[in-house]
């Protein structure tokens, strides 16, 4: 076990009605990072997070949370935003934040004071004394997130934190998550929206069909796919395809093809030599979305096989 791991899990298995929903997942989350747990719907992300937090017990495997094998014993050092949002509708926003802090050992008086500060910082100061039932879904979601950080946890686990939020609140939430990391907390977030993961995550794991299919940085994930070139010739004719790589496809005025492993220079030299010239050229690194689709698709094929 590494001292600098906030979470370490090996071979986690969970079966529901005999079906292996999580099938031997390994995860190692270094401290002080934003770590993404990515996967399609039903991949087993939530079940994995619940096992890591000790809400449910794994059927097989071991996990360590903040250095202990008894996750419940460190619950005061952990913040958690579950996938299914839950607040008492009759509670005031300020009280809800303080109550969630109190559950994690923060004195109510301190919690109330911090709650006001946090609500102000999140742009919800005007709603501090509003009951939860009066808040919009996005506002209530932010209140719940504030409740999960009010006790300043060392580890913050967010399950699909962006679902149901409008773009403005999504940006607020991103800022809050980054602020938590800057404070020194380790943040684990699950999502199936790649744009958020791409912007936020230092490392990530991709889970599909109950198994971990990838672990590494965003760049490493994107590096799993070759770069793509979009080329627009100065002069075009029916024979240009002879000078392009085999996978080249005509798109609008130009062509799109995978950059060969040795680079694009040889292809471009051939095209220039044949007189097609270069009117436009862009070389793009594949997105996390592309990598995710490929990894998940490959997982589906592996399972079918």
């Amino acid at each position, binding site marked *: 076990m590494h001292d600098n791991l906030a979470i370490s899990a090996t071979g986690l298995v969970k079966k529901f009605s005999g079906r292996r929903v999580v099938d031997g997942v390994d995860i190692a989350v270094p401290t002080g990072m934003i770590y993404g747990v990515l996967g399609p719907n039903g991949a087993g992300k939530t079940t994995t997070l619940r096992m890591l937090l000790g*809400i*449910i017990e794994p059927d097989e495997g071991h996990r360590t949370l903040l250095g202990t094998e008894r996750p419940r014993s460190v619950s*005061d050092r952990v913040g958690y935003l*579950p996938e*299914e949002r839950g607040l008492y509708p009759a509670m005031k926003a300020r009280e809800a934040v303080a109550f*969630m802090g109190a559950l994690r*050992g923060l004195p109510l008086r301190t919690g109330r004071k911090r709650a006001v500060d946090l609500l102000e910082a999140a742009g919800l100061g005007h709603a501090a004394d509003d009951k939860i039932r009066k808040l919009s879904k996005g506002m209530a979601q932010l209140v*719940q997130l504030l409740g999960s950080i009010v006790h300043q946890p060392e580890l913050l686990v967010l399950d699909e934190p962006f679902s149901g939020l409008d773009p403005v609140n999504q940006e607020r939430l991103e800022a809050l998550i980054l602020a938590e990391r800057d404070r020194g907390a380790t943040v684990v977030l699950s999502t199936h929206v790649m744009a958020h993961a791409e912007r936020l995550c230092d490392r990530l794991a991709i889970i599909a069909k109950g198994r971990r299919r990838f672990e590494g940085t965003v760049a490493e994930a994107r590096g799993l796919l070759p770069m793509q070139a979009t080329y627009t010739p100065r002069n075009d004719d029916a024979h240009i395809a002879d000078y392009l790589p085999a996978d080249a496809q005509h798109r609008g005025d130009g062509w799109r093809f995978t950059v060969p492993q040795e680079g694009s220079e040889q292809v471009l030299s051939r095209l220039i030599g044949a007189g097609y010239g270069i009117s436009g050229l862009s070389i793009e690194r594949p997105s996390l979305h592309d990598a995710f689709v490929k990894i998940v698709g490959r997982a589906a094929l592996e399972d079918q096989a």
Partner: protein
Amino acid sequence: MSRLGTLVRQTMTIARRDFVATVFTPTFLIFLFAPVVMGSFGAIGGLGANAATSGGGEKSRIVALVSGDQARLMMQVDARLRRVYRDADEAPPILTTKEPATDAAAQARAQIDDRGVDVAAVAYGPLDHPQILYTPRATRAGDYAGDYLAELAEQTLRAERAGVAPLSSATKIKVDRTTPRLGRGKESGFFAVFAIFFLTLLLAGQVVSGVAEEKGNKVIEILAAAVPLESVFFGKLLGTFGVALLFLVFWGTLISQIGTLMPAGMAAGLAALTPAMGMPMFTLLFFGYFTMAYMLLGAVFLGVGAQASSVREIQLLSLPITLIQVSMFGLGAIAISHPSGWLATFARVFPLSSPYFMAGRAAQSPDLWPHVVALAWQAVWVAIFVAVGVHAFRRGVLQSGSGKFRWKGLFGRA
């Protein structure tokens, strides 16, 4: 902070939330003043019933077909005999004397069938051998109207011979017993059993929907992640118990300060209670057993209610819950009247009936140590019921656990 300290702190956080969420709502006022509504309906019903019976009583009569001097003498004797009846409901119907006709038997029968007046009994013929017709009646006095007429005939004849002037003049001196009256212990015991039954019936049922709120608004996931489920369950129990205590303190204070609020019979009954171990200790034990009865039933109801997935299912549980409470009351009440039988042993040991029975015993027996053992025994069962409820919740609702029962979760390290 130690594990126990953390557990207590988490439990109290849940309890406080539940208490505040319940008490600081307009609905709580309805709950608090429910006895007023119940009492009002009871009073209205009682007044109606009283008016109906008293209306009937005014019209009810007994008739003696006697003539002249015997009639006057009988009225005097009747007035003297009626002095022993303190309760108007117990007294025989009003006496009317009538001159006998030639066919006294037919006249008596006609009196019974009279539509204008409700005649319970009619006497005719010579007083040393009267014939008495009577009709079965609902009240005790009516049932004995015939006997009363027979006694009137006897006493009238005696007065004819000895005169109506009293032969004896008694002096009454009021004294208090220095020892409990035989049977008072049983009465006190039954009162204790009934009082605990009444209070738990009134207050413990609300625990059944304790976790339903959290399941409904998804807060349960937050709670389950932050604190042990044992704390959630104990917190819910304590929170609702706090509400019950507030209810008791409110009504207890009100009734004790305004004694006139209490029905006369109840006030006299309470004043006459003479528990074997003395009132202060009995009060303390009564509170202890009420707490245990509440916690035991509450733990069972909470555990069962936590499995319910809808309000309808919770509503369906109200009947079996009431049946459990009534059966425990019945068991306790029967056992307390035969405290040395096997049923008493069962009621003493069976956790759900133990508080009822032992509260009754506190009124009957001065020994203290059985209560210390009983309270400890009951507390252990509260913990067991909570642990079983938590286990079932973890397995059934959170779909967690390896199937192993986790005593450690309750008593040891998580």
